[in-house]
């Protein structure tokens, strides 16, 4: 097996230079095994969600909100009215499994919105749990290390974010504002990857979820629940795939009056780590790659995002920018943002294909290289024959 030690390797190297006393060996990496807790407090128990408590957004323990039937398991069995969902292309988070749920109060409905995030009624909650498998070949709550559950809560004044880190005994999760660093060893295909999984700080949440209305006003918004990502299938019951937008309508979560006809709904390509990059037809590589860049980069790299001052715009809603562009400042290598036909010479690829602190992108939320997504972007850039940049 090939060993990729990323951050740990560089830390070890530094300490070697500093003190010459470490004896770090490559063979130290062992894939761990994880087991779900079996404590009696984990038993399923259908209850009413604590909607009022949620609006105060002040619980110290995740279980206080009673979002899930089992207080130990935020990956399944939501209480009423919660529904799991997925995105056609997920944002990469160090190969964690992500378990997403939308909770909407009784008698309230979500409005369909073109291009941007759906309009959610006050009281809505989005729960996303990040859970690390031992190897990416085998996923699921029973064999994963549940790390954190992030909530977005729609208050009357707007969305707020709350992050809960799972306690060591995995029976409940505790609120954090400071984030956390979780040393991780992960098997992925032929590789064993070691890195520090980072739970974001409170302010990190805002950095990605900020939407600039204009020069002086910003909103906090969710990123994922947009029509183009939800217009895809989900396996609500075993072996049965249902379009998520249809499901939201039939469950009464989405206001049917706001939903356009099926053929008029936007749709992103479906891409995840189980889709072989080689299987993507050349004519569709661009759409897949831009879809991947959209979900992974465009919350900042768009006119309304925090990286609006850069020469890279990746949103499928705005005009794409980056071909032959010079980086604005502080981007280092002298490379152009995207050099058509040459991924290695493109800053976008360089900054995805690294874990170097200060150079890797996105700047928060990624400690491992997303091999598949990065490969997809590389193929796309290499496929561009278009203009020379001079």
């Amino acid at each position, binding site marked *: 097996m090939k060993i990729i030690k990323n951050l740990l390797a560089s830390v070890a190297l530094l300490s070697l230079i*500093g*003190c010459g006393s470490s004896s770090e060996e490559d063979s130290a990496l062992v894939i761990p095994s994880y087991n779900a807790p079996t404590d009696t407090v984990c038993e399923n128990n259908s209850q009413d969600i604590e909607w009022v408590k949620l609006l105060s*957004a002040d619980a110290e323990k995740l279980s206080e909100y009673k979002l899930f039937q089992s207080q130990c398991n935020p990956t399944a069995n939501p209480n009423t009215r919660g529904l799991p969902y997925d995105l056609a292309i997920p944002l990469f988070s160090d190969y964690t499994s992500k378990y997403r749920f939308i909770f909407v109060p009784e008698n309230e409905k979500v409005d369909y919105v073109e291009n941007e995030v759906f309009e959610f009624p006050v009281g809505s909650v989005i729960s996303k749990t990040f859970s690390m498998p031992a190897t990416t070949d085998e996923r699921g709550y029973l064999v994963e290390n549940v790390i954190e559950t992030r909530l977005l809560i729609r*208050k009357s*004044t*707007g969305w*707020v*974010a*709350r992050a809960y880190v799972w306690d060591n005994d995995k029976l409940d999760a505790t609120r954090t*504002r*400071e*984030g956390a*660093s979780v040393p991780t060893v992960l098997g992925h295909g032929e590789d064993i990857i070691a890195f520090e999984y*980072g739970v974001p*700080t*409170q*302010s*990190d949440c*805002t*950095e990605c979820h*900020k939407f600039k209305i204009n020069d002086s006003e*910003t909103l906090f918004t969710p990123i994922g629940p947009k029509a183009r990502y939800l217009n895809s299938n989900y396996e609500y019951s075993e072996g049965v795939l249902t379009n998520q937008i249809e499901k939201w309508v039939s469950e009464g979560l989405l206001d049917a009056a706001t939903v356009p006809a099926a053929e008029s709904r936007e749709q992103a390509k479906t891409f995840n780590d189980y889709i072989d990059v080689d299987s993507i037809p050349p004519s569709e590589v661009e*759409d897949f790659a*831009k879809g991947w860049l959209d979900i992974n980069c465009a919350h900042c790299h768009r006119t309304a995002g*925090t990286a609006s*001052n850069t020469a890279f715009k990746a949103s*499928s*809603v*705005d*005009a*794409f*920018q980056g*071909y*032959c*562009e*010079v*980086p*604005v*400042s*502080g981007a*280092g*290598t*002298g*490379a*152009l943002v995207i*050099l058509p036909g*040459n991924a290695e*010479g493109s800053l976008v690829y360089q900054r995805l294909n690294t874990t170097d*602190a*200060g*150079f*890797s992108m996105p*700047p*928060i939320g990624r*400690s491992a290289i997303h091999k598949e997504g990065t490969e997809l972007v590389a193929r796309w850039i290499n496929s561009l024959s*278009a*203009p*020379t*940049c*001079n």
Partner: protein
Amino acid sequence: MKINNQLKLAAAVAAGMVLVGCGSDDEATSSSINPDKLFNCEAVTTSPRTICIGSADELTSARVQSDLINALATSQTGDTFVFPQGRYSLSTTISFQGQNEDTVSVSDLTFKGAGMDLTIFDVSNSSADGFKIEDTDNITFEDFGVYESNNNAIKVIGSDGVIMRRIATVWETDYQETNGAYGLYPVESENILIEDCFVQGSADAGVYVGQSNNIVVRNTTAIKNVAGIEIENSTNADVYDNIARGNTGGILIFDLPIGNGKYGSDVRVFNNIVDANNAPNFAAGCSEEQIANDSCFEGGVHIVPPGTGMIVLSTSNVEIYENTITDNQTAAIAITSYMMADDTVASAPSQNVGGADTSEGAETAVLDYSNISKFADKFLDGWSPFVNGISMHDNTLSVADGINAPEGKLIQFLIDGYKEFQSSLGIITSNENAKLPTILYDGIGEMLAVTPNPDGAGESIMHAIAAGTDQVAAGLFGAVDAGAIPQPDDQNDMVLKQIPDITPFTGALYSVDASSVCQSNNGVNGVTVTAASVFHTTPSADNFNGTEPLAKVEIGGAAALTGDIGTAFTQANAMLDDDSMTCTTPYVGAAAVVTIDGMDYGCGEDDTTSEFCAP
């Protein structure tokens, strides 16, 4: 004058730079800057609040980091966060995005330490910036140091009102490419005051103010950075009473083609000490491959010539006066158009372009502005590659004997030209370094801006290039049926970028006037220094060989130069035959005024005592 204090500080920090071995306490450090831990803060719980970071009985790095993040998450407008004395290692970027955890907008925050060498944040374990503060107005940083950032030390984006006062940003290993980028880094902001700060070791710029306006940088010491102090794509800036020493380049005023409508002008640089900026350029440069396939961004800091006191690159309306710029081994002041960074800026636009049709046999499709010319969108965005309105006067300039050794990417072409010329005259041997004028000016931008387009109606060559770009783009705009504009997910969506963005071209940017680049009364003890342009700045048919511009020496050779060409380096052999850089009405700048929370800062505002505030 506070410069003496700054000098002492610089010396003290430099003296303290002996590396120690592995520390044995709980927070090992390779630095000798390791002040005693001390808690000295009294909380105030009524607005405006004072929030103490750490406590009298707990002053660990973990506690300090935890307290600070929690304080920011629960912040209110007007809060002051007081840091304890001591050196603390942070493991994450201290980020604030203008909102607290209840997404309420928060402004008027102050971060305050015990002193720039008494409260130190070692951020080498953070993944990116030390502090990253966005979208909050009236932000103040005072009295602390940020060391060893993997990226920038303190970055502020999108703020109106930024004060950085007695802040140190330091990378302690000299000339190391892996040092972080910027020390003090306000960008896309306005009303910025940087004073009494210390910046050392940045692999880019120690102080970098970018894409901003209303800026004062004063009483600040910058040493051993690639660029000491850099004002880039910014307007209304005063840079005064600073020391830039031991950098690759001392003070840089740049205006780069960045394509977001933010371009620089109106900068005054005065009463600074800019000496011995002879460090190697240790910024990451372009790879061999990038250079070979011409995909290198030529405006990066890696082009800064070692041994340059000041550089003005394609920025107009800059007044440089009463500075002491000495012992820089390439040139005291270099003034260049963007042609020196990338001469393709003067390439004629391609007429051989069509619409969005990419089918075989169609005219070359315009997939991007770059099909028209590399800089087409930047011209249309309002950028000019020229310098105009540069006035340098009353500066004390010298290149010390024995250290003359000009080098550097940005001006290598000029250096090579001088060397060839001086060798041919026997002024130097082929083994000797070229002798450059103390004030070096390329002149080629001015030449292109004053020379009429041979086929034109009186417009200049550069105007014709930019206007031609505009015409091609406008023609394309007219030719592409609106209904045929590709949608974002189409293969040709690059077209979209340029269709809606055409800004009417204004020719004013592409002309220069008689006060283009002026110098007077510069030198030491009344001896006027050499100052010369390499290209003729008055129009003449002789200036070109076909379309190839010719330097003065190429046109006339040694014999055509007037004056007494001896073996000494004089104005005459500095190619000074038609351009004394003297002007009747040189540019006069105005004081920059920084307004923060109702208070005005700058010359004649809070500062009524500094010399030379008035030009």
